[in-house]
């Protein structure tokens, strides 16, 4: 047989090859921060359950530079997650009124609107 199909292997660094892949990878990496943050809340609650002093120490630790850097990074990735999640939302929810398929724009906007309300709500509650 003269055939000899050539198989190309995907390099491990494939996600650096195209910008769109890299931003996909950034989106995916948001999970590390989101997961870590969830665990951090568990730790905080644990400290809370231990008593006032222990919880105070936890709050102090949040002020450490390391914690601040982590949270700053986490916020950036959480925002990447939010933006990418919203932009893909219309794909999951096709809307059609009569013959016309609606474009995804309104769905995305609705998500942002809810997001702003939720965030403002949390901020308000936190300030009271």
């Amino acid at each position, binding site marked *: 047989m003269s*055939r000899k*199909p050539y198989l190309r292997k*995907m390099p491990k660094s494939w996600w650096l090859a195209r910008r769109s892949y890299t931003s*996909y990878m950034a989106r995916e990496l948001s999970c590390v921060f989101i997961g870590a943050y969830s665990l951090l809340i568990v730790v905080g609650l644990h400290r809370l359950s231990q008593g006032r002093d222990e919880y105070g120490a936890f709050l102090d630790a949040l002020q450490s530079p390391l914690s601040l850097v982590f949270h700053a990074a986490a916020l950036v990735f959480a925002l990447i997650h939010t933006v990418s999640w919203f932009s893909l939302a219309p*794909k*999951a929810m*096709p809307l059609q009124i009569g013959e016309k*398929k609606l474009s995804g724009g309104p769905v995305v906007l609705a998500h942002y609107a809810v997001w702003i309300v939720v965030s403002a709500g949390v901020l308000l509650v936190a300030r009271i």
Partner: protein
Amino acid sequence: MTEQTLQVEILRYRPETDQDPAFQTYTVPYRDDWVVLDALNHIKDNIDRTLSYRWSCHMAVCGSCGMMINGEPKLSCHAFLRDYYPNKVRVEPLANFPIERDLVAVTDDFMEKLESVKPYVIPQQERAVDEGPHLQTPAQLNAFKQYTMCINCLLCYAACPQYGLTPDFVGPAALALAHRYNLDTRDAGREQRQEIAASNEGVWDCTFVGECSQACPKSVDPAAAIQQTKIASTIDWYKALLNPWGKR
């Protein structure tokens, strides 16, 4: 005035003589209404008869001329030289498929997958010709119309890293076509298609990279089809859980 020219770098691979693919550069005249396919045809006609690639319609509808052009999956009959000039154009066979020769990719895998999702109407009940056509309103048609536009060009497979990483993944176009029939009012075959579509190698291998939809020249939006299938399959699963005696 000297003629304007453009350099085209083509990944060549001749299985009978080459160990590995390698780039070869050709210089072609530049015309602002030429597409990359015109440049390839020029090379084949005037410079190198041994260059192999597929094409037929030259009007972006037969789906045979998909290639990587400067790293992006594109139809070479719909990629205009004017968008690259005066820079070089780099042409490679579709990513994620084995190379048969030069720009010709081996796409058997897709054909098998397409077949596996049963892309045809499976009616509840056979309808006789005498009964005439079904009624289907424009609204019902529009619900699936977009997914009928697939020309099987496989740009989406070349764009999808999950297909590259997991060759068993059924992949965007086949899943979009399964979805197309599921949404068709004439069809009752969803359950049969779900065997493949809702399996591990079906929609679950998709991590929603979304590049398939970006690459698609016909706005099929396979990412949306897959996403919707995931949701519907999840609902099925919970339904079956709540009603274990129901029809499986």
